[in-house]
């Protein structure tokens, strides 16, 4: 948990809280989210029942460029791209097709893409932005929090604003004063609610 500044699980049942801390840690680790979360406070009360997760995200703006995962080798009118990570391959190909046309882009195997006579320098190719991991961040985070929350808690309310997030779940209709509870949990972390 070295990357997270504040991580607490609050629960009237001490042992249950301990297990949920472990679950939260495992899930966030599995989903690669520990490095984007700055603070996280989880509150569970099985008697009500209610599950509240509030937290802060780190600011990340690392846009992925072609140069980050591919080597561009120009040679006599053609450019050979050697791919080391396939994650953004599909979106990269889509951009190439739109910009240069399909006839100029060839992919002989999984890790090689060849561009023929394209009107761009290798530097320009390397600088093309192909993806932004922070776009899907909120979606991933909601999914992870759904995994952490007890399964029966299917009535949910989620608020995601920039760097702050709130996730409330219960199996009963959520109480009207749930915002007070959320605000209280933000104060425990030394933050103001969104």
């Amino acid at each position: 948990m070295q990357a997270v500044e504040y991580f607490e699980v609050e629960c009237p049942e001490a042992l249950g809280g301990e297990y949920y801390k472990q679950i939260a840690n495992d899930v966030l680790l599995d989903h690669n989210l520990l490095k984007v979360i700055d603070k996280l406070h989880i509150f569970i009360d099985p008697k009500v029942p209610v599950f509240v997760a509030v937290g802060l995200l780190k600011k990340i703006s690392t846009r992925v460029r072609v140069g980050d995962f591919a080597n561009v080798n120009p040679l006599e009118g053609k450019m050979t791209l050697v791919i080391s990570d396939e994650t953004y391959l599909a979106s990269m190909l889509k951009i190439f097709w739109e910009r240069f046309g399909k006839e100029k882009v060839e992919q002989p195997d999984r890790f090689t893409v060849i561009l023929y006579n394209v009107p761009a320098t290798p530097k320009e190719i390397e600088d093309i932005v192909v993806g932004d991991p922070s776009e899907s961040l909120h979606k991933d985070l909601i999914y992870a929090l759904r995994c952490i929350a007890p399964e029966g808690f299917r009535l949910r309310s989620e608020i995601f604003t920039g760097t702050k997030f709130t996730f409330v779940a219960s199996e009963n209709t959520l109480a009207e004063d749930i915002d007070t509870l959320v605000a209280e949990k933000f104060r425990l972390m030394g933050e103001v609610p969104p």
Partner: protein
Amino acid sequence: MTLVPVTYKGGIFQHDIVVDLIEDLGGYIVQKHIIAQEVVLQCFVPREDIELIRQISRPLFGEVTDSPLVGTEIAIVSMSLEIHHLPHPSCDIAEYVRRLGAKSNMVSLARGPGKRIAGLNDEERDVINEHDIAVYLMGNFETCIEYKMPTLRRGIEVPIVLCGGPDKEVLERIIDPPVEGYVGNVGRFMRRTKEADELAKLDEIIDEITRVLEKKREEIAKDPLSVYPARLMGLIREQIPEILDVTSPTPLTVQIAGLRVKLPYDTFAERVKKVAIEDGITLGEVAEVLPSRMRDYVIVKVLPFSETNIAV
């Protein structure tokens, strides 16, 4: 002659010697797996002949180990099929009991999770009741377990082993009337059980299941069964050859006091009833042949001696 459940592991070379030996000694082979060059036999053998099997299989590098769960069918009752409970811990536990020779089925409830909303329907209840024992895998909070357990055990007649997050003492306190077995500190978790302490926990579950099944076997021994279920297995295989075409891993599943035959009930029930045991006694006279709630299978429930006055 008391038959004890054991597992034989050895090379495939000349393993038919061991198979013949077990059958000649009056034992029964419940399951046979051939995995690459290795053969695993789960069988019942006479207690006094285990040493003989060890001696004869020594040149074949075979080893005989006790496996108390051979010949049992266990229901692992998971609260749902969501990512919250699968693959850990439900599959880990189901797989672990399988290693010890049991046939485990995962019974996942349609409306298991939650506290107030948890429920058990009639199909789930009947399917669980067809097993020898039910292992309930609950969550981490004692409040929820205490609240939902009366609903989830309604109508369940087989022994229950309850696994949950709270300590064993807490589980014993909150469950009323008590169930047959408890294992504490095994609630919901999201990682694979591979550390020593986690494996120790799985062993604890096995011990608890074994203890409860042992008690059930003792109960049955007071009024013995008219026929040994493993014996029926061999007879059905001989007399209804269609069973050999069933692709299920265990077409005939042996239970402590019965047998699951994985053939359609409508077509085969009469033929199963007419299976001859010996001296003109048929299976229908010593056992009930009923439709199973699991698919369209046949379930055979062997009757005790006191009801049939027959022992074969």
